[in-house]
């Protein structure tokens, strides 16, 4: 394939991408035309940005979290099957499995809700930081700075909660899968259950961690974010 062939192919792809972008922008107009025009020479970098949306990131995250929850559920049921009818069943009773599945479902639902919430413009971390910096540069009042700082703190905590929930679910999925293989091995090889006991202990710690994340108090009182005294502490005008 010569350089000319390659350029023709590249141009054809660019044209196809331009048409897709123009059609996607249902209203048409000048903006759609310019976006389509840019796509002809730059489709490998411009196309994915225009043809996908940040919602794709959200969907991907949602799929990731739900996948971890499904992995946990599946592995737990397989572990339960492996332990059934043997001395190992005492380590993982059916009631315990139900409890873990319930905690995982609750945590996954909360993480999904947080993901949807944090995808909204008002919960953007970068904008909150930028707003605070702008206020600082513009010499805003301490009260306005404190409000912006409170907003940033809250958004940061929400993002941290979401990330922690996601990490805990993934860690738990790894543990439960390890437990399943250990139980299957112990059942067929007749090996010791000492290793299984350690994993079960670790797994319960993680499950408790899921619960703690939901019970933990969050938020910073407004008065801690400003140098001004609280309203109740201010001397009343004589």
């Amino acid at each position: 394939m010569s350089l000319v062939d390659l350029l023709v192919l590249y141009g054809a792809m660019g044209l196809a991408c331009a048409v897709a972008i123009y059609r996607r922008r249902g209203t048409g107009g000048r903006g759609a035309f310019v976006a389509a025009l840019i796509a002809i020479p730059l489709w490998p970098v411009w196309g994915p940005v225009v043809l996908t949306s940040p919602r794709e990131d959200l969907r991907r995250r949602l799929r990731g979290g739900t996948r971890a929850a499904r992995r946990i559920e599946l592995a737990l049921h397989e572990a339960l099957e492996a332990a059934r009818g043997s001395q190992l069943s005492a380590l993982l009773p059916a009631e315990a499995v139900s409890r873990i599945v319930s905690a995982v479902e609750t945590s996954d639902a909360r993480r999904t809700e947080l993901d949807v919430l944090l995808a909204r413009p008002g919960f953007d971390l970068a904008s909150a930081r930028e707003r605070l910096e702008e206020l600082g540069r513009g010499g805003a009042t301490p009260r306005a700075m404190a409000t912006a700082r409170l907003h940033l703190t809250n958004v940061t905590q929400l993002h941290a909660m979401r990330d922690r929930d996601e990490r805990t679910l993934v860690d738990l999925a790894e543990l439960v899968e390890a437990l399943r293989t250990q139980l299957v091995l112990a059942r067929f090889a007749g090996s010791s259950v000492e290793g299984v006991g350690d994993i079960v202990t670790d797994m319960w710690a993680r499950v408790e961690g899921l619960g703690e994340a939901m019970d933990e108090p969050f938020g910073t009182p407004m008065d801690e974010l400003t140098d001004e005294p609280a309203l109740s502490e201010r001397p009343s005008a004589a």
Partner: protein
Amino acid sequence: MMTLVGRLLRAPGAVARQCLEGEGQRELVTTSLVAIAFGAGIFGAVVGSFRGDLQVLYASLKLPLALLATLVVCVPGFHVLALALDQPRTLRATISLALAAAGRGALVLLALSPLLWLAIDAGASYHGSVLLASACYGVAGLAALSVLLRGLGTGGRRLMSAAASIVLFLAVSGQTGWILRPYLGRPAQQEIPFLRAREGGFADAVWTSGRSARGDYDEPPAPIESTPPLSGAVDDLNWADRIERDDHLKRMSQRRAQ
């Protein structure tokens, strides 16, 4: 857009976060593309001013073209490298990060343009101008790298990912730049070509230059006695070519003396 330009220059960390978090990616990509076209275009015009005339226009078109063509080729590679090195992110995020880094670099090039212009106007030599332009590119590269590194997160694989991306970028940009020569243009040239005739590739040139630097030439030079005087009388060569030829002849004389 000016807010985003200011942010690109002042807050590389915030820009890198914006690339990864998804909000406002499209605006950032658009601003970065404009910055690349404008910043590299102005710098290209200044580089082309060494030769003047049409070279100003050609170089102002070719510098942004070289940078954008490099990104078009490299971005899928950056994304695959990130995935292979356990740094999962969306293609959108990879594109935004690469373009934002290049946009910041182009803005730094724009800022350094007056320096190069002053040097050329003050009579800087061909090789001096090349060196100064290369130094400006180096500074712009460091500015771009600061966005890239902040976007690669933390952990041991961050440096590996950055190093792999840099190697890929340098290889592709070297070849792209080589294909789109000349940028400065030599004053003695009668015609100003948009592109120079193909003479192998970038890697060949580096290899040949390395060998030449060690005094190892493929073609034996003409006998020293039959060469014209070293200065002034070679009408068909410009001064830069004469310097290269003089160096070559001196090295050959030294070898023969040994």
